[in-house]
């Protein structure tokens, strides 16, 4: 069939401008917006689920809004939030961890060491 297995080009011909003094900021912003997009897609899917559930008589949005979280649920969620924050901010905390890590401050020295330790 015509069109089966076609892969469309994803890059527009023409030099892509960057705006920040460091183009990696533009790249990161692009990735953040893509993530925000996918988050929005997921949230929309949840919204659809709630609406379908209501339409089919399973449960209503009011059931969700008024659902009482018990201690166990609150505790589970709280732990999950902490994990989320830890994952998202990993690069910041990892840098602090490395402050005392004097032995890895000169990476090329390590390379030289493992390359030349047979000398």
């Amino acid at each position, binding site marked *: *069939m*015509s*069109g*089966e297995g*076609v*892969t*469309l*080009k*994803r*890059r*527009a*011909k*023409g030099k*892509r*401008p*960057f*705006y*920040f003094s460091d183009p990696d*900021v*533009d790249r990161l*912003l*692009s990735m953040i*917006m*893509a993530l*925000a*997009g*996918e988050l*929005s*897609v997921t949230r*929309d*899917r949840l919204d*659809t689920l709630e609406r379908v559930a209501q339409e089919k008589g399973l449960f209503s949005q009011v059931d969700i809004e008024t659902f009482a979280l018990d201690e166990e649920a609150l505790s589970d969620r709280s732990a999950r939030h902490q994990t989320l924050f830890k994952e998202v901010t990993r690069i910041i905390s990892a840098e602090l961890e490395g402050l005392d890590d004097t032995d890895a401050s000169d990476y090329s020295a390590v390379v030289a060491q493992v390359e030349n330790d047979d000398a």
Partner: protein
Amino acid sequence: MSATYKEQARHGALPETTHDELARQHFVRSFKEYLVGAIHPGLETAYEKRAKPTFEAEHQREPETMQEVGTVMKQDSHYQAWSSLLRTSQEMMWSSAQIPVERTLPSLVGNARNTPPCGSLTLDPKLMTPAYHTAVDIHCQPGGYHTEYTEDDVAQGAIYDRAVYLYAMGQMGVNNADMGDSTVAWLQSEYPDFVPEKILDMGCAVGHSTLPYASSFPDAEVHAIDVAAPMLRHAHARASAMQLPVHFSQQNAESTHYADNSFDLVVSHILLHETSSAAIKNIIGECYRVLKPGGLMLHVETPPYEGMSPFETFLFDWDSENNNEPFWRKSHQLDLDALASNAGFEKPIIKVMAPSAFQETQRSMTFQGGDFGGGGVWFIYGCQK
């Protein structure tokens, strides 16, 4: 921004979308609305409070040209963030429109092949795609208007059809027809006795601006040309799905196959700024040639730079360098009177701002920052032969 959220009207030539594919597209529309409504207004604040004082401190005067505004604005963090986000939104728009087309391409091609008889489609595989189409991909659509991935391909047309709706944030109506609708409304108000029998739309893309002429002048023979075959195949399938007969044909507006004195009305919609200095002269000349004496030429565009402040011009010029619109800047600064008179037109040149026919949403009344659909007016340039 929108008072009511109206989805693009479904027609048989659009791809089926999954829940998440559609949600991804809706995110892009919302993202663009947010940029226009919430981020774009900050540019003026950044200019007045930060960039302009910087320029004034150095030069003891205000910036006088868009280039001078650019020297300070391009260093401004708000402008950098806005530009980066706007460019990203454009890339996400194309990607979100591509995903369902890529997945369903065989059925889209099949549907277009089985288009019920309605109007016609004439392709010319030997037609050269002009350099102003192939040098860069216009509007950053990967592959531009012309790329074909498979036999009888419609991918670029199907992608473009959906992207126009997202780009305009729905503000060109459910059929993306606002440019055609607005021009027809202006025409019927200014020339109430004018009933064209034969109409040509140049650079029609997917025919979204063409169809209002077919529906408003049902007795007219409507022709529409473009250089890109995937656009025309989709356009024909789309017009057929809407049961509006249009004769689509793959031709270059600079030099068409039509005989002298053929048409009562020749129109184009945001075509001129996608061409070149040489091409635009050829196109206006071709309009003159194919028009009957007394016939009308009307080109719908965004307004010329003339009369805008240096700051407004700088922002309006963004697309030139940031959205693959290499002729945008020059085309907005042309001597339109000379262009028409050099082509042979002798009557008064038409240069008017025509109100948008689509008034259901609030208008930002700005053409800046990718909000052309929300401008609330279209610039019409033309002349009677």
